[in-house]
């Protein structure tokens, strides 16, 4: 790989932009294709499909065997609530390759002492999200404050941005009231139905750390959904 191409791939990834590197496996010749340039490429339809699936792989074209390195934005997790569960969740999520950001307007909760080494914004969700890269299909959002004033705006933004995972803490009763509020806010049943609530896989979690495990497992399940469905 040419160093300039490698540098460009790393830069695009940092900026959360998708690219595909086309490599001729016989002679190593390469070109980098950005999502915006795909239409003009001779492999346009193949590359478009790959941008959607996010999967790397071999394609045979014009008698050549080409390897497509598909690089989509790295998955990230935005946590609403600088709470005890979040303190356990942040390092676990980082260990599984998720970029983590934590948002909580309550400055007593959102302190660097409680959340070292993680992006922390002591702002209301609308203001905090404006300072981060836009929510997208490669982002998971977990709302953990229990406070509708804080959780609801983030949930609305996450559902509208089609985040790959949207979860909210709270009992079924709490969620029932949440559904009513989100319906009043104009979200469709289908959109609201995408919320994982009560949040987390049902593993009988009790402690904050165990709940964090159940949330992270559910995020990973959503991220790898296609892989889980694929035949063995």
């Amino acid at each position, binding site marked *: 790989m040419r*160093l300039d191409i490698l540098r460009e791939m790393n830069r695009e990834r940092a900026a959360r932009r998708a690219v595909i590197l086309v490599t001729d*496996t016989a002679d190593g010749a390469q070109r980098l294709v950005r999502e915006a340039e795909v239409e003009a490429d001779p492999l346009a339809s193949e590359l478009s499909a790959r941008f959607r699936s996010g999967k790397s792989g071999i394609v045979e074209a014009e008698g050549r065997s080409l390897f497509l390195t598909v690089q989509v934005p790295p998955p990230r997790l935005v946590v609403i609530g600088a709470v005890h569960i979040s303190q356990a969740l942040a390092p676990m999520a980082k260990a599984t390759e998720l970029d983590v950001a934590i948002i909580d307007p309550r400055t007593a909760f959102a302190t660097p002492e409680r959340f070292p080494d993680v992006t922390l914004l002591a702002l209301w969700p609308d203001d905090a999200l404006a300072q981060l890269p836009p929510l997208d299909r490669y982002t998971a959002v977990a709302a953990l404050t229990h406070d509708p004033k804080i959780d609801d705006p983030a949930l609305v933004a996450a559902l509208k941005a089609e985040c790959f995972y949207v979860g909210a803490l709270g009992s079924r009763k709490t969620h029932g009231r949440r559904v009513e509020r989100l319906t009043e806010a104009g979200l469709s049943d289908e959109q609201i139905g995408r919320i994982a609530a009560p949040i987390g896989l049902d593993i009988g979690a009790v402690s904050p750390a165990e709940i964090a495990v159940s949330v992270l497992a559910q995020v990973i399940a959503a991220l790898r959904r296609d892989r889980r469905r694929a035949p063995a």
Partner: protein
Amino acid sequence: MLSTDTDILATAESWREAGRGVALATVIETWGSAPRPVGSHLIIDEEGNFLGSVSGGCVEGAVIAEAADVIEDGKPRVLEFGVADETAWRVGLSCGGRIRVLVEPVA
């Protein structure tokens, strides 16, 4: 902890910029039960330092050895590893799958 494929490509860039000879190995095809998915990376420098994984450990020694030649002559190659009963615990995949790995110089 440098273990993700993102870290690995970023590290390949920094190794090369520090003047080290670097090869990049990528899993380009898998059949059956393969330990690492297509697109997984391993980087190797001229002194045999490496980072990442293309096989969960079982054939990495062979890839690293080949990488020294790739850094030397600057030519990419495709290596294939599979299970052959009697060699499964030498250079092969004990899990029973087959993989193809592209090893290319970073130049």
